[in-house]
């Protein structure tokens, strides 16, 4: 087995609480980031098209051209497609550039597909709920060449809020020594 994100921290943010494991039939949506082709070429193109010194400055690509550049190889699409089908996952949508696959499946299937994952339901103070896995997932070694990571397992929705501070509270207090 291979763990794509062993370094991803699972941290329950303040205001969220666990409500235990979800039922195996609980519907989930996971995002598979498929390995793209021509990443080096893409990086070089960014420099060429964005640098005012370049003769190609501003000659931007269309979405179709970007797709043609980075879309995963047929082998990747075949291998990942067959693996998902083998596990009974068929409800998938691919993005225009072919490098993300969004699939719907029950939690039980997701846990068989991604050994190590255990989906729990977390609820916040506004009754927003998410099903995430506090334990790391893995993929079969065969997938190492074809998948970058699987989204929807560990990261909570962003909680960033605008600051509201009064003028009186603007300056930080005296520093402790």
């Amino acid at each position, binding site marked *: 087995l291979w763990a794509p994100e062993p370094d991803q921290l699972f941290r329950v943010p303040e205001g969220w609480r666990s409500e235990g494991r979800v039922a195996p039939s609980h519907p989930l949506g996971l995002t598979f980031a498929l390995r793209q082709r021509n990443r080096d070429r893409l990086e070089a193109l960014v420099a060429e098209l*964005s*640098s005012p010194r370049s003769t190609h400055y*501003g000659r931007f690509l269309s979405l179709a051209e970007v797709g043609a550049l*980075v879309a995963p190889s047929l082998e990747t699409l075949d291998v990942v497609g067959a693996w998902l089908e083998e596990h009974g996952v068929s409800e998938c949508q691919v993005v225009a550039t072919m490098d993300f696959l969004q699939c719907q499946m029950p939690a039980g299937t997701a846990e068989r597909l991604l050994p190590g994952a255990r989906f729990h339901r977390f609820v916040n103070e506004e009754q927003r709920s*998410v099903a995430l896995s506090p334990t790391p997932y893995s993929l079969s070694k065969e997938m190492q060449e074809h998948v970058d990571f699987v*989204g929807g397992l560990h990261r909570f929705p962003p909680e960033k809020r*605008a600051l*509201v501070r009064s003028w009186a509270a603007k300056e930080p207090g005296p520093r402790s020594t």
Partner: protein
Amino acid sequence: FHLGVTPAVLRKRYNLTEADVGGSPNSSQACAQFLEQYFHPADLSEFMHLFGGGFPHLSSVDQVVGHQGGGKAGLEASLDVEYLMSAGANISTWVFSNAGRHEGQEPFLAWLLELSNRSSLPWVHSVSYGDDEDSLSAAYMQRVNVEFQKAAVRGVTILFASGDSGAGCRTVQRGKHVFRPSFPASSPYVTTVGGTSFQHPFLVSVEVSDYISGGGFSNVFPMPEYQTSAVKWFLSTAPKLPPSSYFNASGRAYPDLAALSDNYWVVSNRIPLPWVSGTSASTPVVAGILALINDRRLQRGLPPLGFLNPALYRLQDQGHGAALFDVTSGCHLSCLDAIVEGQGFCAAPSWDPVTGWGTPNFPELLRALMD
């Protein structure tokens, strides 16, 4: 004299005249919302009624992508839309609303997927979202970085708020701290916006760095070529730097530029609220100003700006130093320990990791980027 930052104050400070509004049918701008934070069209309308006098503007959003729920408006969403449409006045505006409605769907990933799925996108995007770099997997950050490259080659400008925790702080072992960079602010393929405040809080005066302004050096992404000389200059000339063990001097340094981030007025749920602050305020302002520059470029048959940083870091070399107001005083927050005593980096002449190159001087920045 003013009682807080409003569109009129921003337009005066950044030298935007009544005529500096959009006019091209092809220019466009957007902001992205996460969680279930929604803006109310009625708030935007009231905001423009109260604060939009003196310059032509639109009072409604052209397109909402995703689910725009009911209930109370979110302060963050109101702030984004109201100031994006005040700086980028008269420019078609989209809101990407990414609540992540299906369980397991990551709202930020949902936004990235939208970018990969739409053949037609607004040219400028303002995003106020960030996570600690050390909380995210390398595989995730590297792939998100590639998604920004995909947007860059399409001519899309993406701006991220630099964060509101200064240099940040993380304990690596008992009593030993390091600064804590934020992602995607630390991606070399986005333009990151820091924050400033007026030296005199009630006058449209010179700006100093806002102590909350996020900034520093990535521990994941190496320093891109476009910024090496500017950052090396800062590191070699700064009168006082934090100990080198606190940051990775060879990493991508941010922010790239800044705008006012303190004491904004926002209308949310029909109530005008003062004292709204943070780099989530400065980011839509810079986004709107860049959308105006795109507007002029498109009117002249030039391509949009696209990924701005390579051009931005060359302005100084090309003699366009007046394009940004250099912010040279004030320091930002960091670890509260005996070594750094709560102080991170300090603003300095030219680029610095608190306010980048400084804040926009619209007519000069326009001239430089039309050149």
